[in-house]
């Protein structure tokens, strides 16, 4: 049974978003890290613009590699470079390990994401 953290927003591609003012912190859900298995590599983006739904990076695990999709449009303003040397943080603490911070240019897009309850239903829990 995967954990779904209250207070976050979720995308159908299993990213979570924590909103702080104009900023969106983006990570992957507990369900996503369980499906991936042990994550071995995190490919972080440049500090640049991203569109909602666009690939911004990728994860590799012993089982698979998987693209990361931006849940919102904006500018990547910070990257969690700790993950480059310790990708296992995404397995150990998926909701405490954000991957990028996006300065949002269209916060209205947040309305299209799921809340915790809807996401739990989405992953069949």
């Amino acid at each position, binding site marked *: 049974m995967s954990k779904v953290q209250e207070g976050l927003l979720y995308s159908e591609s299993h990213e979570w978003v924590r909103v702080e003012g104009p900023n969106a912190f983006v990570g992957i859900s507990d369900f996503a890290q369980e499906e991936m298995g042990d994550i071995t590599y995190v490919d972080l983006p440049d500090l640049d613009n991203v569109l909602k739904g666009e690939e911004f990076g990728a994860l590799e695990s*012993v089982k698979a590699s998987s693209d990361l999709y931006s849940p919102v449009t904006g500018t990547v303003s910070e990257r969690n470079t700790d993950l480059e040397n310790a990708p296992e943080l995404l397995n150990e603490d998926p909701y405490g390990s954000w991957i990028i911070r996006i300065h949002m240019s269209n916060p209205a897009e947040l309305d299209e994401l799921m809340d915790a309850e809807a996401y739990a239903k989405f992953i069949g829990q």
Partner: protein
Amino acid sequence: MRYYDKLIFECSKPGRTGYSLSGEWKDASLGLDASLLRADAPLLPQVSEVDVVRHYTNLSQMNFGVDTGFYPLGSCTMKYNPKINEELAALPAFQGLHPLQDPATVKGACAVLEWTDRLLAEITGMKHFTFKPCAGAHGELTGLMILREYHLSRGDLARTKIIVPDSAHGTNPASAAVCGLEIVEVKSNAAGLVDVEDLKPLLGPDIAGIMMTNPNTLGLFEKDIKQIAALVHGCGGLLYYDGANMNPLLGAVRPGDMGFDIMHLNLHKTFSTPHGGGGPGSGPVGVAERLVPFLGVNTSGFHGNFGVIVRSLAYILMLGKQNVRLAGRLATLNANYIKECLRDAYKLPIDSVCKHEFVFDGLIDDGAREGKAGATTLDVAKRLLDFGFHAPTIYFPLLFHQALMIEPTETESLETLDEFVAVMHKIAREAAEDPDILHAAPHNAPISRPDETTAARNPILKIQDEN
């Protein structure tokens, strides 16, 4: 096995050599100018001849291949490769060929290509083949370039999308993406086949074609193929046949008759040449008559892996028409035999007659009890190694969570199949009684379970200096 865990460099002892030079040869400079001589000795292992021979002989004995034992690796068609293929490919007139030789001096090799072309065309219902592609995925890319050239030559520039079933080999969407096509997925239905109702709304003037494997990766024959071909052709698209699973159809059904326009064959699978680390591949691409003008798309300078083509021609000629057909039928019979023998112990997600392979979805009783984890497909695969069998393909196709994909091929005897079935039953009993036996497997292999996570996170890519 003394050196199995060492590199040849780690066997090195200063001053040890495999030769002894005397007299004038001791001066290795041979009168060369000092500027051409290196200051430091090269970092080569210092070992005696017997060290080298034992090191590599021991390593070679750790190999597992189809010459060693049963290799039911689903989707890979690990059939036995007759040694006569090797003898013929090793004929000096073939082996000594140079790709830039004057064509007038290689008429025999040209005849091999033409002869193989004719036989493959007869087997598949295509008009002609190109032998340039050096592997299956290379063939896919070549075939898709032909497909795109066809549309472009007609001024049909809007066909940018290609349909790929959710059960496809991963190379299909990958090849399409490399070819610049956008991938549209079509779902499988409950019977494990392409869902025709899901396909219909996808078709339109933007569809370049569909890529299909038949039988598909679940080992099931796409029985609606004629209807699918009519629908795709109706919207102006072409049909691409991934020949990875051609083996069971040999001499029975032809992709050309099913309505496919372009296809590749994996000669190294269906036509019996060493592969999977044992040798190079060959993925010739065949096309229907109207596409022959596009067969020249350039994805390789030469005629592929020629030695593989010689081996495949030898294989087809040795079998003859009747036995080519028998090979496909026996591959199908063997797969169905194992499936029916094991369905009491392993979950069969789709209950129907399979072709050359089939997929289980893990154990029926995996031994999971209160507070105790059950045995997974990975554990079953690892345990099989203890009994001297190669593991089946696991966790593919992605449609099932515990996929275990078995392809026995036609070259195995009933005795081998029965031994495998007995071992699979034994493993299922062990799992139900004490899954920890499986969790700790393999018990008899030179290494147990490599720590893949640590290896991927902290790879050690350089020789460790023992000093």
